[in-house]
Each structure stands twice: as C-alpha cells, then as structure tokens.
C-alpha cells in the first residue's frame, strides 16, 4: 500500500472521518486550508492538490515502520516492546523550581532547559495550556517559557501546528516534545521530505512522552467546567494503580473523579494507538509509577539522547537510579499489551488481518507475533 498520490480528500475519508485522528497537528503544519481549533481539524477551504504532505505525514495513514526506523535509528523496525532503546532507568530533577511545576520528575523540562542553555537547540515546540487549561502548540525559547509548559494537559493539543510558525529558512535548531502519535508524525516528516513547508533538518532533538490515551478537548472542557473553574486548576494527574482516579488540583482543593467518569471524553482514536512509549524519539519519558512518586521512567534511544543525558548528570541537574526489574517487566508487558490491543481493534475495524491501517512495513515474524493471542 503506497502513501503517495493522496491528499486532503483521502485524509478526511480515511482518517478524520473514520475516527482515527489523534490530534497531533501534523496535517495543519504547512496547510493554509486546515486549522486545529476547538479540538478538531477545521477545513477553511477546499484544497485540490492530489498528493499532499497532510496525508503523507499523518501518523494514521500507512506508515512503513521499517523505512522510518532506518531513517531515525539506522536499523530495521525490531520486536522490542518499548521500541529501540539503548538504556532505560529512572530520573528526576534536582532543581526546586522545576520540581514544583513538574508532573512527576521534571526530567523533560530539565533536559530541554539544558539543551537551550548549551545552545544545542534554540527553540522548543511543545504544548502549553492557556488560563482555561486548553492545550495548544507553543514555541518556547527560554527556561522561563519552558516552565510555563510543564505539567500534563492529558489532552490532544495538535502540538505540531506550532511547528508551522517556524519558517523553512530558519536557522533555529529545534526540539519537539510529543506523544507517540506526534513523534510518529514527526518521524514521517523526517523520512518523507515535506514539499514546501518546514525543514526537518532543523529538528535536533525529539522528546517523547509515554501516553496511555488523550482526552478530546471539545468534550472534556465542558465537563471540566462543571467540575471547577478551569482558571483555578494548577495540575491534572492520573496516578498509577492501585488508584483509579483523574485528579484535578486547584489552588484550594483537589477534585477527583473516577476513570470511568472520564472515559467518555477519551479520544476514540486512541484505541487504535499502538505506540505507548513514543518509539521514534531520542528520549522517551513517563511517570515511574505510584511506588516512585516524583520520579520519571526514562528510555534513551539515540546518541543525541545519551549525550544530553550524560551532560545533565555531569551538571548534577538530574539524579538517576536504576529501574527495578519488576518495573521494567511491567513496562514491557503494558507496552506489548497496548500493541496487541491496538491491532485487535484495528482488525475489527478493517475486517481483515491484511489491513492494519497505518501499521505497515513490519517483517512477517514481528507481525505474526503481535497478532497471535
């Protein structure tokens, strides 16, 4: 199945109207006809281009995982549950301010602030919540600005739309922070050169966020408004098992709802997502679990990631410890289950094991293993 020769028409027919849109924002990155607004892709006018970047870079159109893996890592797509990794451990920031604002360990903010200050990058494309906690793509160029972006929004932010603001000829070195789908889109942008818009050579660092599912802003926010005054919320959290809640921390109190109450607001596209750990990043970061509050699980995938991590350790801005075997095993199990569940849902949707929607380019062995019970 080829990715070529299709444009916005097919994008809507095959992805958006099929309930597969994850809200990554890759399609709107370079397009004047589509914008992300109110948690959905809005078409302003009709585009007649037959072969468009929107379709080519969408993470939910056919992706040749091998080709992408070769481009990012130089090796074919493997069978590791958490994707290509050179090191996995736990980390947390030693900076007080970062720890105050961080979701868990503040590792992402710490590493990005370091990269900015060292001049490894000049700007960070990441997600920022406004006063009412609506998440949008944003470009941070300083530690202060980064701090404003710390903390999880738990919703699809169309982050890659912010990538649009950076002109092709820009000499700024960029970092991008994203969920699995966003990183996958970014990897497709790197693998399949954009026609006219952005220049993926500018992207020097990709930070992935481990993600279970994302909320749909257009339905989540009315719910949130009933729960509290969004402008008073300071943090959202979904603590790991044994907890089963979605917590909203306001300046005065904490409001909790069960995960069942929040389930109606999950993006249905997430049930088809097989990449929990943002496999194509330089570094992927997540929560270390309820046994290690305030710590991150960190997966290093590339030399760039390893070098940055090393610099952070040397400077003493991050402290690290080994990830216990049990935790690692648990991580791998959950990640693998995610892949399997996703494929199961995909096959139910397409009606055929031969049509795995966006999951393509897998070697037979890998595919079979994932499809077996």
């Amino acid at each position: 199945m080829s990715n070529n020769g299709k444009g916005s028409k097919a994008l809507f027919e095959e992805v958006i109207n099929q309930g597969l849109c994850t809200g990554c924002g890759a399609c709107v990155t370079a397009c004047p006809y589509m914008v992300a607004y109110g948690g959905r892709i809005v078409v302003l006018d009709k585009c007649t281009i037959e072969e468009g970047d929107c379709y080519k870079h969408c993470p939910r159109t056919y992706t040749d995982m091998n080709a992408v893996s070769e481009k990012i890592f130089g090796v074919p797509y493997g069978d590791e549950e958490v994707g290509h990794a050179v090191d996995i451990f736990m980390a947390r920031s030693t900076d007080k301010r970062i720890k105050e604002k961080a979701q868990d360990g503040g590792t992402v903010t710490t590493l990005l602030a370091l990269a900015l200050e060292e001049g490894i990058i000049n700007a960070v494309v990441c997600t920022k919540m406004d006063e009412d906690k609506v998440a949008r793509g944003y470009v941070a160029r300083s530690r202060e600005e980064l701090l404003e972006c710390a903390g999880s929004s738990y919703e699809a932010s169309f982050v890659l739309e912010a990538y649009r603001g950076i002109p092709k000829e820009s000499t700024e070195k960029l970092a991008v922070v994203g969920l699995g789908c966003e990183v996958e889109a970014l990897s497709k942008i790197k693998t399949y050169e954009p026609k006219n818009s952005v220049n993926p050579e500018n992207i020097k660092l990709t930070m992935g966020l481990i993600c279970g599912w994302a909320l749909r802003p257009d339905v989540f926010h009315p719910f949130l408004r009933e729960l509290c005054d969004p402008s008073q919320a300071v943090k959202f959290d979904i603590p790991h098992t044994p907890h089963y809640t979605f917590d909203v921390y306001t300046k005065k109190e904490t409001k909790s709802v069960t995960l069942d109450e929040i389930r109606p607001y999950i993006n249905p596209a997430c049930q088809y997502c097989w990449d929990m750990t943002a496999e194509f990043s330089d570094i992927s970061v997540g929560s270390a679990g309820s046994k290690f509050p305030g710590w991150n699980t960190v997966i290093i995938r590339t030399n760039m990631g390893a070098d940055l991590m090393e610099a952070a350790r040397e400077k003493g801005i991050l402290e690290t410890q080994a990830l216990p075997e049990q935790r690692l095993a648990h991580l791998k199990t959950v990640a693998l289950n995610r892949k399997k569940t996703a494929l199961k849902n995909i096959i139910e949707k397409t009606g055929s094991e031969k049509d795995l929607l966006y999951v393509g380019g897998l070697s037979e062995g890998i595919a079979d293993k994932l499809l077996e019970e």
Partner: protein
Amino acid sequence: MASIAMDKPGATVLLMGNEAVARGAIEAGIGVAAAYPGSPTSEVLPTIAGVAKEMNIHAEWSVNEKVSAEVAGAASFAGIRSLCIMKQNGANVAADFIVNANMTGLGEAGMVIFISDDPGGMTSNNEEDSRTITKWFDNPLLEANNAQEAKEMIKWAYEVSEAVNLIVFVRGVTRLSYTRGNVVLGELPEEKEKKAHFPDLWDMYNPTKSKFTSGPFPIFHKPLHEKLEKAREIFETSTFNRYMGPEHPEVLIITCGACTSYSIEAVEELKAGDRVGVLKLGTTWPLPEKLVAKHLATTTKVFFVEEMDPFVERSVMELAASLLPATSALTFYGKRSGHLTPYNEQSTNLVINALMDILAMTYQPRDLTYDKVAKEAVALVPSRPINMCAGCPHRATFWAIKKALKLDGRDGLVTGDIGCYSLAFAGPGFFQARTMHAMGSGAGVANGLGSLKQFGFDQPVLAVTGDSTFYHAVMPALVNGVYNNSNFILLILDNSATAMTGFQPHPGTGQLATGDPATVVDMEAICRAMGAHVELCEPFDLEHSTETLLKMIKEDSGARVIIMRHMCQLVKVKRKIPAKYKMHVDPERCLGDTCGCDRLCTRILGCPGLMWDTKAGRAAIDEVLCAGCGLCADICPAGAIIREEAI
C-alpha cells in the same frame, strides 16, 4: 456633458433613456423628484438633481421607494407636478401607498412614476414585470421604445395624469434606460416659480369629491374604474400607438416598449415587410380596445412581441374572446405558443427566430464556414465570473466571516441582502450567503431563524447588509430582533456609499442628492439606542475582525450588531484617495499550485488584482487593477506577497 437643462429647443443631443426621462420631466415643469437608487433607473434622479437649483426643483434620494412615492404624492396633493422613479422591485415596496393614492385621487398637479424593469436580471436579483403590478393597482400605463419617445411620453403622461386624476406609470426596460440615442430637445417650461398649497377638500357628505384620505369606503373604487375608462378613451387616439405595414398583413405583430424596434428590425432583416405589419402600442393599460379590434380584423395571425409577461397578449386575447365569433379565425403566437419566453430578455434575433417559424422561412445571419470557425474559436474564451472590485472591503469581511463560522463549527450561515455584498452567495464572497431575497430581507430572515431555539436550532446566523440598505429597510428588522429577543448578528458593511447602483449618497454619508451637505444620521447611535450590543471593526484588520466575530457568535444572545466600516474602493478612486500599498509577489517564495498553497490567492481569494502566470507557475500582481489594499499579503501562506508603503 452639456447640462440636461440647456435651453436649446430643437437641438439634437445624445441622451440615454434615463436622461431623456429627466429632460422630459424638466420640460413638463416638475417641482419634485424623489427616488431610491435601483438599476436600471439610478441616473434619473441625479440628472435632475444636477440642475435642481437652476430649475427650482426639489430632488431627493428617499430612503426607500414607498417614501419616495409618498413624497411625490404629497407634491401632487399640494399642486406641484412630481416624478417618482423606481426599478421593478420599487413597485413592490411602494405598493401600499399607490393603491391607496388611487383611492384618494391626486391633487391638481399630475404625478408620474417612471419604472424600469430588468428582463434577464442584468442588474437585479429577480425578474419581474411591473406592468402586471400597474394593472393590479389600476393605473394607466405607457411604454416607451427609445429615448426620444421616453421624453415625449413623460411629458404627455402629466397631461393624462391631470385629466384622469391618477398616477400614470411610464414603463421602460434596461435597454431603454441605458441606451443612448438621438433626442431632439423641447421647450423648457416658461415659469420656474411654483406655488405649493395643500387644499381643504374633505367633505364628509361628498366622499367621492373629497381627497387624500382613503378609508373603508368601497365607493372610492367605482370612480377609480371610471377614471380608467376615461384613460382608455384618451388612449384610443394617442399618437404613441402606430401601425406600420400592409393593409391586410399575413401576420400582425402587436408590440410595445423596447420590443418595437426589435419587431420592426426583424421584419426588415427578413425582408418580410409585405407580409408582416407592426402595431406598436405606446399605451398598454388600459388597452385601446377599439384600435386593437380594428387591426385584429385585418389578419388571421397575431404575434405578440413584448418583454417578460404575456401582458398585452393576455389583454388582447381577452378582447378577442369578447369579440367572438368575429375573431374565431385568429391564431395567436407569443408566450403561450412558446415562440418567445416569458423570462429573459428579448432581442431582434429572438424575434427573427420566431418569425422564421411563423412565416415558414429560413434565414442565415452569416457565412456557414465562418460560423463554424467562430464557434470553435469561442471555445478558447474563458468565462468571466463577476467579482468584487480589487480593494473591496467586503472581500476582507467575508474572509473573516468564512473563517469564524468554520471555526465555530455549528454550520453557521449568512442571510444575504441586495448590494455589492450580494456576491456573498458565490465565489467572490466565498459562498457564505444561503438566502437572498429583497432589500432588508437578510435581517428579516435572520430574525426568523434566530427565534427557532426551542426547536433545537443552534446554527449561528449572520445577517449581512449595507449602509444604504440599513436606512432603507433594515432598521425595523433590528427593532424586531431586539424586541422579540431573536438570536442573530447583524453585520452592517458600511462602505460610505450606495455602491452597487453607482455611489449615490444616503443618510449616513452626509451628502444630499444635490451635493449639498446633509445631517449624518448616525448608524451606530441608532443601533445602540435600539438596545443592541454594537461593535465596530475595520475589515482589513483580519485578526481583530475574525476575533470579534467569534466572540459575538459565542455570545449567542439576542440581536447583536457589528459595523464593518471601510470606504468603498471605487469611492476612494472618485475622491482621489491614493492606494495604501504597492504590492508585488516574490517568485522565489511563491508556492503556486504546489502543496502548502494550491493557489490560495488566485483560486480562493480571487481578487482581480491577482493573476496566475501559468507558464511560471506563480501568482503575480496586475499593476493596472491592484488597489494596493494589502489583503493578499495577509493571507499568503508563504509570505510571498510583499507590500510596501506607497509614497
């Protein structure tokens, strides 16, 4: 051009129909002229206004045709001859007054309404035959063929009006109004002084002799019909009715108005003058029955050539039925038979086609080989869709509307109105408008949609209107919206002109028809006084206007108003206001028809100042047409359109 009031009786000048009407009214010694701009009649009033002082005439742009008819009526009541001018739709608006004025009768001085229809709707959004309305109202009706005749008819119409004490309609069509032809000027009126006085003519015991108050008195209706009979008698001997042709023609054409020329010329072109006679009627209602009956008796085939409705056709067929069995041998051709259509404009060629069938003859306009080559060559020719001018603020307004409604995502719509922004239903306005009816209907329909909340209606409604239209018909609709708490936004596109019809002044522009200064009737203050939430926007500040629209749309509460204010580009040209920017396209940055652009500026924005260079695959600025407004630079996704401040 020399003055329309030049004192040179016998001189021949080139005048368009509208100007000839003005001259005719001036020669008839009118004291009052009132109108609302409406193509194809818009030139009549300003022509008179241009010499108003010199000729002692009060010439005004009224806010709508009803008021203009009332103003003209009042002049007649007070003994001053008056002219009221309107397009076909104007009769719809003025109807209630005219019907009642027919009941009450006029004053000593005559009143004439010049009404010009637009077959084919070249400058209208509907087609309508005002003659049927005239008949419905019970007014005498004259139809002019060309400019010279129009001038003569207007003058005679005052005599008829005073003889029968009714408003007389002189009807034209676009071809009459806008065709310039030779006109021999007549004498100007001797006295310029006119004296106005409202007479006391109410007599409760003699209501039929009383004047100016209609009422629930059916007794006014009988005299009205008697007046029409009197008009019919006058028409039987009118020299505006003329027959040309053999004594016993094989085919008798009965024609009127502009179709007279088409009929005569068709017969000439077919060289069928020995077979076809033309009875031209200048007085078409009431029908001069004796005259027509006389001619019906000379033939067996009657062919009706007229614009739009089978108006004369029906009257004559009614007459023929009443004369049976004498007329039983007649065959009728016209709209009923399908030889001509009751819609679209007539032409000499169409009459020739019909005659070819009726006379069973052939006709070849030109060499067949040439014809084939010509038709093939025309395949090269692209169509020219109508557009808004380069620099038009409406283009910016509709761009913001399109985006705001799409972002809102509830399938919001625009209810359209009449004016340059009428183009909102098509490409130039990005297909935003989904309704368009009469002047002010946008606001009226929006009122209706905005009151459907209880039935689950939640689509944002934006009524679009213009500054002139606001004073014309929208104000009552806004009152209705505030009073009935209807949920819609009224967008007033204030470009300081009645632009579509030719930049006539209106109550918001601070100028009278004569060019003298006028009190500005403050639109913003009126809307606030009505109790609406009002915002002001500069259409070319896309970010702010889109934001304001979104904000107001989300408000979702009652009648709201946004005034989008920016001067019409053509008015700027008239006032010699220079272009703000000098524009050019950087071919290095232009993405043209590739991904990331797909010709957004030439294909979607569609401003006439932009061209698509097919060879280079790039957009370019047409320096002759570009107005330098800078809008394209704001929407270019590649930042390839550069603007520099013009010196």
